[in-house]
């Protein structure tokens, strides 16, 4: 189990190969990689700057990962999130979940990214032809996260 916040890029293949550390009880790993798009809200995006709250970010990501582990039988999980200035096509985030069976891995991976989007203190600013623009929270993200809310978890 690990969470990392870094400005540097990450190697998706190397991260997934390292996940589980040779634990042969793992039957499958599900992963999601988020990338910087070159268009948002109909406007061209030439770069994106990610800001975060050092300290609280690590704490929230660890909580999110612990919650995934509480809900699904995971052998391992990983969250890597970048900050700083990124370009279209750059990787932003990697989440991965390893379990004996695929269903838990898929569900936990989906949960990790949905909860991260609504609970981890990151903010995106996009460079557009009209100048820099802070990205607003998407109602879709709240809806996506809401599906994972259970009466005993909130």
């Amino acid at each position: 189990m690990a969470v990392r916040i870094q400005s540097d890029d990450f190697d998706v293949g190397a991260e997934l190969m390292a996940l589980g550390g040779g634990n042969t009880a793992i039957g499958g790993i599900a992963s999601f990689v988020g990338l910087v798009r070159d268009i948002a809200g109909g406007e061209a995006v030439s770069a994106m700057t990610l800001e975060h709250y050092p300290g609280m970010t690590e704490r929230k990501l660890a909580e999110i990962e612990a919650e995934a582990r509480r809900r699904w039988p995971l052998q391992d999980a990983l969250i890597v999130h970048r900050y700083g200035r990124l370009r279209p096509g750059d990787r932003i985030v990697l989440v991965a979940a390893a379990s004996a069976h695929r269903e838990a891995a898929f569900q936990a991976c989906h949960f990790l990214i949905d909860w991260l989007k609504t609970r981890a203190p990151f903010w995106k600013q996009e460079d557009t032809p009209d100048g820099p623009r802070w990205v607003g929270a998407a109602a879709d993200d709240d809806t996506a996260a809401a599906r994972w809310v259970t009466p005993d978890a909130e």
Partner: protein
Amino acid sequence: MKLLYFAWIRTKIGIAEEDVSPPAGVDDVAGLIAWLKGRGPRYEAALANEAVVKVAVNQEFAPPTHPVRPDDEVALFPPVTGG
């Protein structure tokens, strides 16, 4: 009390952090925001729409009724947009 500002709340207020000593009676998140809004037009503009001002006290999300104390770290920021 240590205050931290992030994203457009930081740019609107014009600083990333500051140490403040609110008067007695400012003892919860709602009271702190109301007091900050009275500190000048930059604060008033940054905090005008309280529906999009999120608060963390000592790095945990906190509702308007959450208490604030002199040695707390209080962060104000817009809704998060990571991932």
